[in-house]
């Protein structure tokens, strides 16, 4: 499973995996919260460019991080969602909770 984190100027970018389900959400939740606790993150960016599947566990994981960021006064953005993920966002009302960016920051470089 590939998901990565990039920390740059108070921004944490979470590269979400191909399939964002209950199984993959468990580790992302723990690791993201650990990073949010350790560093002063002002912007949390969920990058969906690899993501082809997301279910309600993925929605729950994103909502949970939105709540954490609300406490610390930060902002949450979602980027690079395909049509499928946008449909799930609409269906769950997630688009009302989170800033959705078309296209997104192209400076991200693929790392392993």
């Amino acid at each position, binding site marked *: 499973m590939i998901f990565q984190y990039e920390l740059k100027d108070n921004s944490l970018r979470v590269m979400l995996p191909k399939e964002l*389900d209950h*199984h993959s959400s*468990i580790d992302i939740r723990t690791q993201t919260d650990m990073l949010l606790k350790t560093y002063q993150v002002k912007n949390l960016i969920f990058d969906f460019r690899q993501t082809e*599947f997301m*279910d*309600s566990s993925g*929605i729950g994981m994103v909502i949970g991080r939105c709540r954490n960021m609300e406490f610390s006064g930060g902002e949450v953005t979602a980027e690079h969602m395909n049509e499928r993920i946008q449909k*799930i966002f609409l269906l769950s009302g997630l688009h009302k909770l989170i800033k959705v960016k078309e296209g997104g920051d192209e400076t991200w470089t693929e790392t392993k």
Partner: protein
Amino acid sequence: MDRNEMKLTFSARSVNESFARITIAAFLAPLNPSVEELSDIKTAVAEAVTNALIHGYEENPQKEIEMHCMTAGQKVHIEIIDRGKGIEDIEKAREPFYTTRPEWENAGMGISIMEAFMDAVSIESHRDLGTKIIMEKEIGTV
């Protein structure tokens, strides 16, 4: 009318969520579903399997989940069965954003998503006996 059927039993482990999704997609391939239809069914199956795993069995990997799928022509009938603790109030469980486990950060969207993506969803549940989620969808109607 062409009929087909499969039954699958797997351990209630979260790693098997994707196994169940991939299996249902492979089984339904002969019906020639669109990418969208297949994604809808995979998502609905994921919700039902995740519910069985975390609510029915409270993540006990010793337990087993059954997936039963029958097709008749373009009609798909899927049952996801657990023998766990059952749903106390099915009507409440169907309400969007309702969750019995807010501390687990579940969106409370599982059943709403199944209903949005399938033509029909029904739930049979008995306390301490388990839950059966029955979902139906006709392929190629849109």
